């Protein structure tokens, strides 16, 4: 283990779902204490905290959690990066270690979203008593949802999926079969919010949200938290054989934003920045997509998963449909994708997601995933997209120790 590598020493996620009796501080604290226990360290050992809670972005969640688990005066970075918030918090801890400012870093993300409805896309205002009045950067006289298209998340990602379908193929049934796979995978994950298998027929017959995304093809709004303890390679050398054996190497940590593209002015482009992040991550880790034993990618909607097979170069360009049809992304396929059940069934407590996916991959690399273990997993990739946009990719490798 090289001295300037960064490792996951401990990691934890709560059960995703409904936690009516716990607030965000309770959930985050549960996960932080879980990750510290898993790492076999205490708050006294931690040099820095990266923290995220999107819905309470101004609440200082990092310091709130310190008051529950240990106020040691260390620096706290409260970060916000849409659905990439948790991955960004993780990367802050990673960078502090890389910079030599910290030996042990803690990152966590937490969200309470159970019962939240449609995210984004506000209602249009009726004409006011003063008459039609121009507002905002577009001089809009009313809310634009339903007038100039849609900004609702299911609708945006539906359009992203059908744009791919126009160029390379894919249809409603194919997208439903992607959701069918993820729901099948979730049956083996006791921490998933939903563990019910669903056939493609059931999925297609369910409530339509934004064609072609029906309700079970959308990420589930749930409560949850995830936390990770990172350690420098140098410090890890001094830790116990047990800690070294269970440590998971972060072979690549990459964050990108969306470079200018013509159409991104009117529809978010989740592909260009994902491709850029993937290229950089594979180069940094010295890993080929074919080497990946499992991938947790950002299936915020079934339509997104197809596009990301291509963006992450799991298949040749434009061949995501054939790739899925080959069953490669099922848990017994060549490149298992979202064996956790993905956001569609595990759930998507936004700021927790970018650490929970690292938990899933790390658990397989440690050989501790129980009945859903991908046998012999040595290397895995996590991916999140935050609309706006941010893309974070982490490549993780099993300890050689």
């Amino acid at each position, binding site marked *: 283990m090289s001295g300037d590598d960064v490792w996951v020493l401990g990691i934890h996620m709560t059960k995703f779902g409904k936690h009516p009796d716990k607030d965000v501080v309770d959930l985050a604290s549960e996960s932080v204490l879980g990750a510290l226990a898993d790492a076999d360290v205490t708050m006294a050992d931690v040099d820095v905290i990266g923290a995220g809670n999107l819905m309470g972005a101004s609440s200082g969640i990092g310091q709130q959690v310190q008051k529950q688990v240990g106020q040691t005066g260390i620096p706290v970075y409260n970060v916000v990066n849409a659905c990439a918030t948790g991955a960004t918090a993780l990367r802050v801890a990673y960078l502090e270690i890389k910079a030599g400012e910290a030996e042990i870093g803690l990152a966590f993300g937490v969200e309470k979203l159970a019962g939240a409805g449609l995210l984004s896309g506000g*209602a249009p205002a009726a004409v006011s*008593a003063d008459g*039609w009045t121009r507002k905002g950067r*577009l*001089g809009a006289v009313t809310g634009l949802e*339903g007038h100039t*298209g849609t900004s609702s998340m299911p609708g945006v990602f*539906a359009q992203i999926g059908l744009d791919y379908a126009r160029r390379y193929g894919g249809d409603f049934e194919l997208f439903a079969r992607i959701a069918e796979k993820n729901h099948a995978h979730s049956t083996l994950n006791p921490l998933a919010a939903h563990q019910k298998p669903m056939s493609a027929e059931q999925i297609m017959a369910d409530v339509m949200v*934004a*064609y072609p995304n029906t309700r079970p093809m959308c990420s589930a709004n749930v409560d949850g938290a995830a936390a990770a303890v990172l350690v420098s390679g140098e410090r890890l050398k001094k830790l116990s054989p047990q800690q070294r054996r269970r440590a998971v190497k972060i072979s690549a940590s990459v964050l990108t934003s969306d470079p200018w593209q013509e159409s991104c002015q009117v529809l978010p482009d989740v592909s260009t920045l994902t491709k850029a992040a993937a290229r950089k991550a594979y180069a940094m880790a010295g890993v080929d997509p074919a080497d990946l034993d499992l991938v947790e990618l950002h299936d915020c909607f079934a339509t997104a998963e197809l596009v990301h097979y291509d963006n992450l170069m799991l298949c040749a360009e434009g061949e995501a449909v054939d790739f899925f049809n080959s069953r490669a992304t099922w848990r017994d396929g060549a490149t298992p994708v979202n064996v956790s059940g993905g956001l569609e069934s595990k759930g998507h407590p936004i700021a927790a997601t970018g650490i929970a996916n690292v938990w899933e991959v790390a658990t397989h690399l440690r050989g501790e995933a129980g009945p859903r273990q991908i046998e012999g997993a040595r290397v895995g990739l996590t991916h999140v997209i935050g609309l706006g946009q941010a893309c974070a990719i982490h490549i993780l490798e099993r300890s050689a120790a």
Partner: protein
Amino acid sequence: MTQTPASVITGQIPIVDYLVLRPEPHLRAHECASCAARYFDRRNACARCSGTRFADVDVPTAGVLSTYTIVTFAPPGVDAPFVAAIVDCGGTSVRGKLLNVTPAPGDIALGMPLRLATYSLGADSGGVEAIGYGFEPVGPPAGHQASTPAEGKEIR
């Protein structure tokens, strides 16, 4: 929303600044003088090349359907279902909704030719009518008439 009788309409206002109603309804973009990137809102500098000079350009009213979704689950106050779309208007991507189509996948084809159309959002107490825009299939079935600001009626 109160509909004021057409006889007392005193004027019209576009739903957004980038919709120009006269002489014929069309969209207008701010084009970077250096690299020709187009934006519908104001920019301090071009996101593509950092140029700071922009000129207004008219966007073609004819286009093809790049992608769409049929939104059936919408916030309160939004009429659903509606068809949200991205339309390629001669190389400029535009967002809008489809007008004069049945909101069903069988009636919408990716790549289909479209043209800009407008509809009324109603008039305020001063008689000012707000005008929205969308895109409708070129060559609607017999009996369909393209809506105009004057007719101000949206057919779905």
